[in-house]
């Protein structure tokens, strides 16, 4: 931020010094005297206009950048959460086909990680400065449905017997969550 401020100050100072020098030089040599009959007040007005324009541009630019950076951070978090759910989905499909204890533990620990990530995303929603509306409560409900389908009974049974309906429901909820997460990301960058 200070670098930008230094650049803006440098340009302003340059103009403050450069314009009078330019006026003096041209007054003495090239241009006609009528053209150079500039009143001091006009010069000050011009300088003020330029300064206001520069500072407004800087201010708006900073605001937009800050907003974009916030959106980038939330988007990265949603990406990480989405990837984690993708991993769990693959693990779940594999567990349905061939259940073993290792996969069972991996699913449980991955779901914990996903829940922690979702909690961080929900906490950002509670930030009063977050003006973009995203239905995070819906995301939580969908996550719980996803977890219930995968880890409620017959999960952990020896052997677990999943019906075709369970497997279809698991796929459906995963697709639904994925599409909602894409929508969330799109909303982050819409105005």
């Amino acid at each position, binding site marked *: 931020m200070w670098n930008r401020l230094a650049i803006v100050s440098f340009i302003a100072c340059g103009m403050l010094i450069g314009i009078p020098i330019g006026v003096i030089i041209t007054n003495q040599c090239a241009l006609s005297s009528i053209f150079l009959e500039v009143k001091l007040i006009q010069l000050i007005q011009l300088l003020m206009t330029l300064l206001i324009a520069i500072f407004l541009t800087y201010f708006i630019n900073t605001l937009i950048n800050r907003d974009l950076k916030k959106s980038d951070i939330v988007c990265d978090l949603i990406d990480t959460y989405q990837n984690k759910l993708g991993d769990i989905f693959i693990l779940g499909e594999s567990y349905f086909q061939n259940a073993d204890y290792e996969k069972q533990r991996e699913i*449980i620990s991955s779901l914990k990680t996903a*829940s922690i990530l979702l*909690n961080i995303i929900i906490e950002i929603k509670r930030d009063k400065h977050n003006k973009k509306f995203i239905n995070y409560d819906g995301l939580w409900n969908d*996550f719980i449905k996803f*977890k219930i389908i995968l*880890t409620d*009974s017959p999960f*952990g*049974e020896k052997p677990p017997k999943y019906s075709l309906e369970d497997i279809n429901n698991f796929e459906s909820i995963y697709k639904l969550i994925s599409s909602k997460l894409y929508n969330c990301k799109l909303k982050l960058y819409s105005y």
Partner: protein
Amino acid sequence: MEEEREIVQINIAKDFSTIPSSRYEKDGPFSGEEFRIKYLEPHFKDPKANYFIKIILDGVEGYATSFLEEAFGGLARIYGKQRCLERLEFISIEDRLLVEEIRQYIEECDVE
């Protein structure tokens, strides 16, 4: 003046297991059923007991729905949702959504 209620603490990772498993004891050790019978039900057998039971959920690998539903939903089916919600206090710093999840299992358990 309101009477101060006693608090009993159960730390699942330290007192029970860091790898809680699934629903029933027949499916292996550290099940929700085992946890409910050994650690929760003894505090509910006396109908006059009204002390708080603080349950520390952190420090484990994670919880399957079947474990949580059998432990806490199962307890609510036996002793009532209201009594469970009044006396159980869940603590998790690692996974804050877990507390809401468990409360949901208690509130939505099918009382026979």
